């Protein structure tokens, strides 16, 4: 009986905590959207300089690592499919497999996971450090809104950077598959390109693109939310930064599942 009550209470507490977190995230979302879409048109302004600064940080500076990893994954995918397809003498279909898998799934996912590690954690650490050092309080005392000042530029930059990176990553991944197939497996170059072009449809692009937009939202909000959760000192910053990466990757996979299912039909 006590075990039952205990389980019951624990479940309740967990769901209450989850509900509370959800409500906090909702408040954050409403505030951010308000300061991104509504307030700038009431003459409150947007900090374009900060947006550009963050855009360079999240987008341009991530390009080398995203490019490298996606190229390698494209090549790996080509090899793995060749392993199966060679048995049927169908190596020219590597192009279809690599193309569709890159565009629909792997390019958005890899970009999002890399950006989580690179920029999502940085957002959590930056906001957490500012909170610990009372910089957020200082902003408020000056009458400057932390949402407008800190979150909106990051949010906008993320929202632009990730879809753009994803599109580039798709091409690079396909290029990786192409290079391996043509130079290592001896697939005909024109055949490969033709097959890729025929395999890819608008719907595939829409799937990948939609996913990438939602991934951007997840990465930014998890980073911000965890950053504001930081209590205490440097230790708290470290803890919340780690937890931002874990939460973010989990939610990215979840969102991925939902959208893959939606576009399946």
């Amino acid at each position, binding site marked *: 009986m006590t075990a039952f009550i205990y389980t019951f209470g624990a479940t309740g507490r967990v769901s209450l905590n989850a509900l509370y977190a959800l409500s906090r995230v909702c408040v954050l979302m409403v505030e951010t959207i308000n300061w991104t879409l509504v307030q700038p048109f009431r003459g409150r302004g947007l900090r374009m300089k900060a947006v550009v600064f963050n855009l360079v940080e999240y987008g341009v500076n991530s390009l080398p690592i995203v490019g490298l990893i996606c190229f390698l994954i494209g090549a790996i995918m080509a090899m793995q499919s060749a392993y199966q397809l060679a048995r049927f003498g169908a190596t020219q279909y590597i192009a279809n497999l690599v193309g569709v898998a890159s565009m629909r799934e792997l390019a958005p996912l890899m970009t999002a996971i890399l950006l989580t590690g690179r920029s999502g954690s940085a957002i959590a650490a930056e906001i957490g450090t500012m909170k610990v050092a009372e910089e957020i309080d200082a902003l*408020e005392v000056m009458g400057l809104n932390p949402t407008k000042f800190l979150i909106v530029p990051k949010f906008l930059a993320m929202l632009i950077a990730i879809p753009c990176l994803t599109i580039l990553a798709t091409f690079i991944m396909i290029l990786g598959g192409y290079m391996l197939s043509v130079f290592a497996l001896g697939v005909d170059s024109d055949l490969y390109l033709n097959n890729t072009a025929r395999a890819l449809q608008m719907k595939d692009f829409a799937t990948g693109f939609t996913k990438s937009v939602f991934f951007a939202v997840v990465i930014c909000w998890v980073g911000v939310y965890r950053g504001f959760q930081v209590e205490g000192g440097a230790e708290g910053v470290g803890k919340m930064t780690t937890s931002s990466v874990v939460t973010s990757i989990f939610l990215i996979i979840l969102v991925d599942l939902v959208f893959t299912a939606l576009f399946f039909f």
Partner: protein
Amino acid sequence: MNDTSEHIIEVRDLVVKYGDRTVLDGLNFQIRRGETFVILGGSGCGKSTLLRNLVGLMRPYSGEILFNGRDITTMTDDERIEVRKRVGMCFQGSALFNSMSLADNVALPLREHTRLASSTIDIQTKIKLALVGLSGFEEYLPAEISGGMKKRAGLARAMAMDPEIIFYDEPSAGLDPIVAAGLDMLIRKMQSTFNLTSVVVTHEMASVRLIADTVCMLNAGRIVGTGKIDELERSKDPFIQQFFERRPDEESDTRDDYIRSLMGIDLPGNAT
């Protein structure tokens, strides 16, 4: 001079809780325009908490905080922003924005709240930094300057919008006696040149004697005495006597060491 009978801040029945724990329990006091009001009290008695309430960073559990006659606890966000333009705050850890140079730190509120031309803002920034003795350090980052300089830069930033009132949270904590005394003089100077109201939280008896017009003594979430420093020194209240005589609580030696290390400079002649 402004009418000295007019109060810039009036606190009525202020109760502040963290969860179920009451930290401030029914405070009542007034701060006159143009005076230096010092909040004294033992560690952890809620001085920083009181300051956070006075600047509106926290909502009290109950009670009123009137700023120029208007209650800031019930204001809308927009009204509160208007009030905050007229308030400056120096944080205990200075809270400078680490990614910005000192000049940008000071210029930030001007850039965001006014439509001044950027050349005007540059000049204003230079003036404010010169005021606290930091000319020539405009382009330094907060990480590149010392703790005392950070405190002064924090003061320059608090002064940026020409506020009516400045709050200082332990301005001289962690500084050597000479720098601490310099900061006291700076607080005095701000008050006399600009007729600023200053609200100072501090532990340092030496600086209290130097700067305070009115002292407010807190203990266990309540006010145990308010008045001029010599009035308080004559008080019969056991806590106030203990505080001024620097007598330790019976059981703890470490606290004695702590207070002694903080007040080792308790000789006004030496400090200045």
